[in-house]
Every structure is written in C-alpha cells, then in structure tokens.
C-alpha cells in the first residue's frame, strides 16, 4: 500500500526506455544543430564533440542567409502556404456546408466525387497538371505552385463532417433572422467550426511547407523556390562539402514548424493525424 509513494522500478525502466528512444529520435536534429555551430576544421576533424570549441555560428548562419536567398525561400513558402490555405478554405467551407446542411439533387454524387478525390495520390496527377500549367502559361510562377491545391477534397470532407455535428436548428434560426446562405457559412458555421478550421490549417500549411515533389516540377527560378526546393538547390550548387552553412540553412528551414509545434502541440497532433483518421 505504501509502495505507491516511492518510484517503482518499472517506472524507472519506462523513463529509461523512453528517454533513450527519444534521444535516438532527436539525434538528427541535434547533429544538424551541432554542425551548424562549428567551423569547417572541427567538422572535418577526427575528434567528436557536441558543442564547438570555436563558435562559428555567426559565420555559418550568415553564409546560409547570404550565399543562398534563404529568406527569400522562406518568404516564398509563406506566400504559397498562405495563398493555398486561404483559397482552400474559401472553396471548401461553402461546399462542406452545402453537403452537410442542404438537400439538393446531385448531393450524393458530389460527395462520392469528394471521397474519390480523397483517395487519389496527388503525385499521379502531376503530369496532366504540369501540362495544364504549361497551357495556361503559368509555369515558373507562384500561380504554378498554388493552383493544383486550390480545392482540397480532405478540406471539403472535414468541413462537412464538422458542420454535420452542428444542430440544424442553428441554421434554421439564422435563416429566420434573414441571413442568406453564404452569410450562414461565414458568419455562423465557420466560427462554430473553429477547431476544424485550425486542424485543417495546420494540416494544410505543414503539408505544403514540406512539399518537394510539386515545386520541383512547377518552378525553376531560384527566386520562386519554396524552402525544401531551395535548400536542395543550395546543397547541390553550393555546399558540396561546406557543411556548416548547409546545416545552418537546414536548421532555419525546419525551425518555424518545430517552434509552432512546441507552442501548439495538441493542435498539431490533432491536425496531422486527424487527416489520416477520417
């Protein structure tokens, strides 16, 4: 009975196991950070230490920011992610509302289309989308990075599911108050579905910030590259063996999402796994 107050040996084992697996998981991050602080001599030296003898952080990060347009890449990522997210919500929320709350001919067919869209791996579509972008003459512009993602089947699905949980009476009351359907969507449903909006936003931003496949196809000029493509280009042309600045650049690319994750862990876990659960 009194044993409860002491730390049980199994609890120690649990912590030991989880701390070691957690450490292993974090090794790439730590190594990346560690190299980004070291001068080339230490990186290529035989001895190993986590922290540098001579701090070289300023030089490395400075080079990362100047010799590659890293800030430009990140601004590109921000612009593209924001545009995609805004357009997705603008398109998907009304559609989700119509599918959840309105009765009309063709609703089931449309929902079936959404479900099929949900199953399609996006990379399969890349070739026709590339051709479409070529025809529209928008390849190698921001538009090329954005247009394939303007509509998200997952977004429509998620909004529909969430709107369905809002009682019909809310919609009826709003109609009696004289709100047109479009205002019901934006002024009643979306604010009430804020958790779904947040979850979807995280899902969308994380996916598109991290995406390499489509930007690789859609843009060539350096000033349009989002972070993953940019850092790849940086590595290929520049760094070769110059690990310090490269790791500094990698750290800077990974940092925004990791910081956001630390700040809003629960939302990230929900947004990123909810995407799979549904």
């Amino acid at each position, binding site marked *: 009975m009194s044993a409860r107050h002491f730390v049980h040996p199994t*609890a120690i084992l649990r912590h030991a196991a989880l701390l070691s697996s957690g450490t292993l998981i974090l090794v790439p991050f730590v*190594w990346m950070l560690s190299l980004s602080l070291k001068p080339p001599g230490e990186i290529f030296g035989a001895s*190993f230490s986590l922290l540098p003898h001579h701090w070289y952080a300023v030089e490395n990060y400075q080079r990362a920011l100047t010799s590659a347009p890293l800030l430009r890449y990140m601004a590109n990522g921000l612009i593209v992610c924001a545009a995609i997210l805004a357009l997705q919500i603008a*398109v998907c929320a*009304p559609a989700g509302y119509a599918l959840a709350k309105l009765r009309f001919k063709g609703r089931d067919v449309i929902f079936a289309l959404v479900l099929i869209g949900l*199953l399609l*791996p996006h*990379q399969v579509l890349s*070739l026709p989308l590339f051709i479409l972008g070529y025809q529209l003459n928008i390849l190698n512009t921001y538009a090329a990075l954005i247009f394939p993602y303007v509509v998200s089947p997952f977004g429509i699905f998620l909004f529909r599911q969430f709107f369905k949980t809002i009682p019909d009476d809310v919609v009826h009351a709003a109609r009696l108050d004289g709100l047109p359907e479009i205002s019901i969507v934006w002024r009643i449903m979306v604010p009430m579905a804020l958790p779904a909006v947040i979850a979807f936003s995280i899902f969308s931003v994380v996916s598109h910030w991290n995406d390499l496949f489509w930007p690789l196809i859609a843009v060539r000029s350096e000033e349009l590259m989002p972070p993953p493509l940019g*850092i790849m280009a940086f590595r290929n042309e520049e760094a070769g063996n110059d690990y310090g600045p490269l790791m500094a650049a990698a750290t800077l690319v990974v940092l925004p999402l990791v910081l956001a994750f630390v700040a809003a862990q629960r939302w990230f876990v929900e947004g990123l796994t909810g995407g799979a659960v549904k």
Partner: protein
Amino acid sequence: MKNRRLRSNRLMETLAAWVLVGPAVALLVVLFFVPVGAVFLIALTDWQFGARTLNFIGLANFREVFSDPGFRASLANTVIYVLIVVPGTVLAGLLVALLIESGKSLRTFYRAIHFVPFMATLTAMAIAWEALLHPTIGLVNQTLGALGLPTANWLRDEATVLPVLAAIGIWQNLGFSMVLFLAGLKSIPRDLYDAADIDGADSWLDRLRTVTLPMLGPVTMFVVIVVALRAFEAFDTVKVLTQGGPGHASEVLLFTLYRESFEYLRTGYGAAVAVVFLVIVMVLTLSQARVMDNRVHYQ
C-alpha cells in the same frame, strides 16, 4: 398553393446549394478528375511532351514499363522499402505508445519528442541524415568505429542504401503511428482491465494478450494501411540523398515517375508508371475499407 411554395422553396435550396458547391465541384473536375482521365489516356499514346502529334499505341507503354529492368527494380525496391517501413513503424510506434501509456508522468513530453520528425521538413532533415551517415565524418560511422564495429558508406553501397532509407522512413513515421496507437489505447475501457484482473489475466503479458492487443486490432489495421500508403509515396529522401542510386539500388516508384516524366520527358512511359502507382495505392486503400468493414470491428 402551399405545394407550390414548397416546391419553390426546394428550388431555392437547390439553387443556393449549387452556388455554394459549384466552385468546388468545378475545381475538383478540372484539377482531379480530368487529370486522372488524362493520365490514363496519355499512358495509351506515344505522345512526348511538346510534340505536335500523338498516336494511340494501346498497351505498348505498359509492356515497355514492365519489361524495363529499371522499372522492375524500382517496383521491387518500393515493395522491399514498404515491407521494412511498415512493420518497423507499426511495431516501434506501438511499443513507444505502450511505454508512454504505462505511466502517468511526462506523457506529453515523450509524445512530443517522438512526433517531431513527422512534421519536420523531410528535405532538410534528409540533409542532416546525410551528414550523420557521412562515411568519414558522420556520427554513425564514428560511433561504430569507436565501438570497433564495421563501418560502411551507407548511401553509396547497394546493400545498405535501401535499408538506410527505410530506417529514415521509420524514423519519420514512428511518431505518427504512436499517436494513433495512443488514441487507440485511450479508448480501451478501464473495466476490461479490471475484468481481466479478476479473471486472473493480471500479469502484464496476459493483460496485453487478453485486452490491449485485441482491442487495438482495428487501430493496428488502420495504421498498417496508412503507413503503407505513406511508404509507397516515399520520394524526398531518395531525391535528396541518392537520386535512385547507386545503380538502381534505391530507385522507388515515385522517383521513377518523376524522372521519366519530368527529367527524361518520356511522357507516355511516365503516365504508364503513374497508372501502375495509382492502381497499387487504390487497391491498398480499398482493401483497407474492406478489412475495416468486415473483420476487425467487434461491435
């Protein structure tokens, strides 16, 4: 009169619905369904990007794809990759989830640590992995060397490159399966463990066998399929670290699709690869729906 009002109300509702859903439907058709149809069509032609003419050549592209040793290697590599990543991710995720759930302290902390790789930009992390795996200055070889164990040029050796990429895949997806398992564990009613205690299944192994694992059945099935889908879509690490090499040793389907379509501009061939890829993914997804409906749902 009343009937007419009703009918006009109906009409208004339909009209409003189409106004709301119209843009989404139009975009879905243009950005999803037309392209899918186009992929199938292109796969049946000899069209090359930029060419003015095209001829239907039946299944010739598919014949070429399947007789191409490069593609066969790619398909085999993908399967091997998936067969390593899926069990690795599922087991590791389950183990970590069980460990986290077996105690009360620091749960969110451990969950966070294990989840970070899932959302970190994989392209950047691949570069970090490259540094770790560097044959001379990488931490991996330095550690192995210090322990007196054999070292390798991990990403340049045909024998090691695919398992190493798979290990990175497990590293990235483990947190994801862990979170799903944690949710699964949370939903197991406490009463069942109490009943197991009273029935005499009270060692951790018996509890695991009697309650935990069977109750995780549906989640496990789900995790397997979702992780398999993610593993089939592996691309970033291959593109950054190996370009499919050495030889074809680390070429996977999506990389082949990319290279044939957009680097070699073999459009018909690329489309055929896309169709094969699509079929595999669809079969997997549909089998998931099938299995979930039939077997693992207890209630």
